């Protein structure tokens, strides 16, 4: 093993060992229960899943710096939407906004649209508010806040990474067709979500 990797291995081992133990503490937080609940939450909403994957796909299609900027912008703005949802501030057309996110982002991939980075980030950020709002408003009251939020955000990020990974196929001509077709499927699914939301 390269000696430069030792701190990483040591840190990872320490974390794993610690999470396997249950020390006495004055807090009530549970990393396992709350985390799994939050992690599962975005994965059981197909409208959320396709939109998250579309963000990653589009980022991969746009290339650097969008490939990493969009997955950074999304959770930060989504948290803002989550705050609005948690505080109960009314936001009209949330489900329609979520369905539209799948349609628009899917179409962007299907059409291989390459707008300026600021436009892409603004578009993704605008839709992130609707996704964050829906998740924030649906948070179970008894959930351990920190672990739940971490699980929720990590699951969202992993869906982005799934899209980015699939989007890497666009390096090859046949893969490019597959990625654009995936965008079409996402847009089509968005139309179905929109029909259900109305």
């Amino acid at each position, binding site marked *: 093993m390269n000696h430069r990797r030792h701190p*990483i291995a040591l840190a990872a081992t320490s974390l794993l060992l610690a*999470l396997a133990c249950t020390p006495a503490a004055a807090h009530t937080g549970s990393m396992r229960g709350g985390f799994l609940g939050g992690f599962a939450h975005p994965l059981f909403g197909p409208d959320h899943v396709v939109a998250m994957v579309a963000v990653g796909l589009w980022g991969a299609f746009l290339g650097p710096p969008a490939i990493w900027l969009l997955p*950074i912008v999304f959770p930060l703005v989504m*948290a803002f939407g989550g705050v609005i949802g948690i505080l109960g501030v009314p936001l009209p057309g949330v489900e329609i906004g979520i369905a539209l996110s799948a349609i628009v982002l899917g179409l962007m991939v299907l059409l291989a649209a390459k707008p300026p980075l600021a436009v892409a980030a603004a578009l993704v950020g605008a839709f992130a508010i609707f996704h964050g709002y829906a998740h924030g408003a649906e948070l179970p009251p008894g959930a351990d*806040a*920190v672990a739940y939020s971490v699980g929720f955000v*990590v699951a969202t990020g992993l869906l982005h990474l799934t899209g980015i990974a699939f989007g890497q196929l666009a390096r090859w001509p046949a893969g490019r067709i597959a990625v654009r077709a995936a965008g079409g499927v996402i847009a089509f699914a968005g139309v179905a979500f929109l029909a259900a939301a109305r």
Partner: protein
Amino acid sequence: MSAFFSGLLHPLVIPAHLLALLALGLLIGRQRATLPPCVGFVTALAAGLTGIALAIAETAALDVLLAATALAGVLLALARPLPTLLSTALAAVMGIALGLDSPPEAISLAAANATLVGTGLGACLVLVLVAAAARCLTRGLQRIGMRIVGSWFAASAILVLALRFARGLMF
């Protein structure tokens, strides 16, 4: 001895503390000067734990820690070099908040003190290990990964602060 180990693991199993240490560790690891913020953190953590040992009144330590974690996450996502004074100040704020938010559940004074010493040592170890790991992650994709993780930390901390506010748990 079990009280000491209980304290040693405390920062690792309390989600808010782990989140804060990971965010701060990665942020410090990305800076040119790592020693001043580490020293600032250790000193402030010792002060916070001493405050707990002296049984000071309940504070808004957790809320401060979460707010500082959100800031550290955003700074990590921005990936800009920070003035040493700013990184040291942030580390100090997080250190004292983490210390004040670590009250031991011990019956005897000796066990409580052992737990506090363990907590301090555990937090410092995690911070140093994460910062050291971050310094090793120098490749393009690794640095991008850290920026993405920074945005996750910030988003999580912001959501938790909102939840605490909505549930009336804020100090």
